[in-house]
């Protein structure tokens, strides 16, 4: 697919090229939500897969593209989840006068805002953590991010109890975001999420990651991974690019957390214990299993691992033992991950005569 000599392409073609995948992808994502009946097992599995794809692909921006090593992804996810629930719960109360789930235009507008807010809060935290710590060498960064994740978890535990609607009058609006339900989790009824929302986000994440890698920015990311000193030598501001990758990854993790926090029927999904370091490890496992830097690899690993844990559910006590053994075996037998740095279509193309 080597492009012929760079020729100027027409505006229409450029627009089609850039917008068509978005339109088609969004259509598919939204369509999926219409096809799969709500409340079913299949829907829940697909939802878990979607969240894991976003997590894995976004972490891949840091761990795969720039070769840095972040172990605090769950922390950003937690921030996104809590920030977005604050918007739909306390913001929803200000808007509707109650804390129920409003599945109408206004409610969806609120939910959309909450997703963006969740992402932005996480991104802001990513900037604050990333700016000083990305100057550190690889493994120290890992420890700093791990520490950050644990700090978030501990701090969330000491927040105040959720303000019930009838108590709202007694708590000032600016104090409300401190009322996050302590270790019980933020119990709420706002199950705004659906597969359409989830997969719209999945598609946007995938496209964004792919576009990014093919851009100047993305090339800079890869150069940092391949050889930081050489990259520095040719004038790439490596710290800036590392921070950019980190902030972007945090944003998507925040969105994933926001979606996760509003999932159907599970009003305590936002719970400090839910976002402990094991959650970060799960995301790292997906990235490495998929092949560092491969977008479709990370996505496919997310699908595989989600299904695998589900299939192993029936073996009860032996579930985690077999999961662990499989993980070790895959790493030994296929150390470069499923795809290495290649993508799904690189394999498919070879088949053509």
């Amino acid at each position: 697919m080597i492009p012929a000599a760079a020729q100027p392409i027409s505006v229409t073609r450029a627009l089609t090229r850039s917008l068509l995948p978005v339109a088609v992808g969004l259509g598919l994502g939204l369509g999926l939500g219409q096809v799969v009946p709500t409340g079913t097992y299949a829907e829940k599995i697909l939802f878990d897969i979607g969240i894991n794809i976003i997590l894995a692909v976004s972490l891949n921006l840091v761990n795969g593209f720039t070769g840095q090593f972040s172990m605090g992804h769950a922390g950003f996810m937690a921030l996104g989840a809590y920030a977005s629930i604050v918007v739909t719960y306390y913001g929803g109360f200000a808007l509707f006068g109650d804390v129920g789930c409003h599945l109408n235009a206004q409610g969806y507008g609120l939910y959309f805002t909450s997703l963006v807010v969740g992402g932005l809060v996480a991104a802001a935290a990513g900037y604050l953590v990333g700016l000083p710590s990305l100057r550190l060498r690889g493994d120290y960064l890992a420890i700093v991010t791990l520490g950050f994740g644990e700090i978030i978890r501990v701090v969330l535990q000491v927040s105040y109890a959720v303000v019930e609607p009838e108590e709202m009058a007694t708590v000032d609006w600016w104090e409300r975001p401190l009322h996050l339900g302590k270790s019980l989790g933020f119990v709420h009824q706002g199950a705004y999420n659906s597969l359409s929302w989830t997969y719209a986000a999945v598609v946007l994440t995938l496209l964004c990651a792919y576009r990014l890698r093919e851009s100047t920015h993305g090339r800079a990311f890869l150069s940092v991974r391949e050889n930081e000193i050489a990259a520095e030598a040719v004038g790439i501001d490596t710290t800036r690019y590392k921070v950019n990758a980190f902030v972007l990854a945090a944003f998507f993790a925040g969105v994933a957390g926001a979606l996760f926090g509003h999932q159907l029927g599970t009003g305590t999904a936002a719970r400090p214990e839910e976002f402990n370091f094991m959650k970060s490890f799960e995301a790292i496992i997906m990235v490495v299993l998929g092949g560092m830097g491969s977008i479709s690899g990370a996505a496919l690993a997310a699908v595989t691992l989600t299904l695998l844990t589900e299939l192993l559910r029936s073996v009860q006590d032996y579930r985690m033992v077999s999961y662990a053994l499989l993980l070790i075996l895959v790493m030994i037998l296929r150390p470069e991950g499923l795809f290495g740095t290649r993508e799904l279509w690189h394999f498919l193309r070879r088949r053509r005569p």
Partner: protein
Amino acid sequence: MTEFLQFLLKGISVGSLYALLALGYTMVYGILQFINFAHSDVFMLGAFFSWRLATWFKLIDPSPLVATSLLLAAMALCALTGFLIELLAYRPLRRAPRLNVLITAIGVSLFLENSGQLVFGKDPRSYPQLLAEHTFSVGGVNVRSVEVIAVVTALALMVALHTLVYRTKIGRAMRAVSIDHKVAGLMGIPVSRVISFTFVVGSALAAAAGVLVGITYGQIKQPADSSWVLYGLKAFVAAVIGGIGSVPGAMLGGLLIGLCEQFVGGYISTQLRDAIIFALLIVVLLVKPSGLLGRRAIEKI
């Protein structure tokens, strides 16, 4: 003042256990540059092996001889476990990227935790009282005899390790391998054997820490309890603060974490204690990225 002294003594006793555990992390990191997440599970196994032996042979009466032999037995069993882990899980990945080894380590950790739960059960266990228990009280400061013994044992093991690393031939080989694998190999050092040996030593120390935790607290959590991993993480943090790869650094880091826990918990906040400790870690790393006693790494082009 009594409070201060109490925190200080407790900090030393807790810290020496962290230090013992941190040594395993720092040695493996020094040689292979990866975080051995399975280390905290070897630590857990140390406690459980000795518990299993003690209950099998009905060793419930306090006796220093029994305690010592259990300690040695657990160290031997864990050394074997460490050897096997390295041989089966890490050696095939010697040339793979470090992240893969890390994932394998997480896999080994999950495997040990969950199979430990199958073998040893899901209940926390009461650890037999292997040493007679006395509490000394000096001016309001309380010291338990077992804590003193734990600190002394830990110190003795650390001195032994220090001698091993800096005064013996195999220690010199370990240091050589940690500086450069390839060159060490070219100099005729059996790199694989040295790496195995490192795992054996680290695992034996972890086992000792496990037995000491059992003796000090008289109770051990079930194998998959998150407290084992948390303990390990803090020990790793200790190793990083001390300067990873440095043996005296791990000891210093362990003590610092132990003291920090006590003083932060005692004077600032018990609620936010762990958050503050991790925040301190971040500050230390930002100010001195190579840790307190770490060598400054020079990137080679």
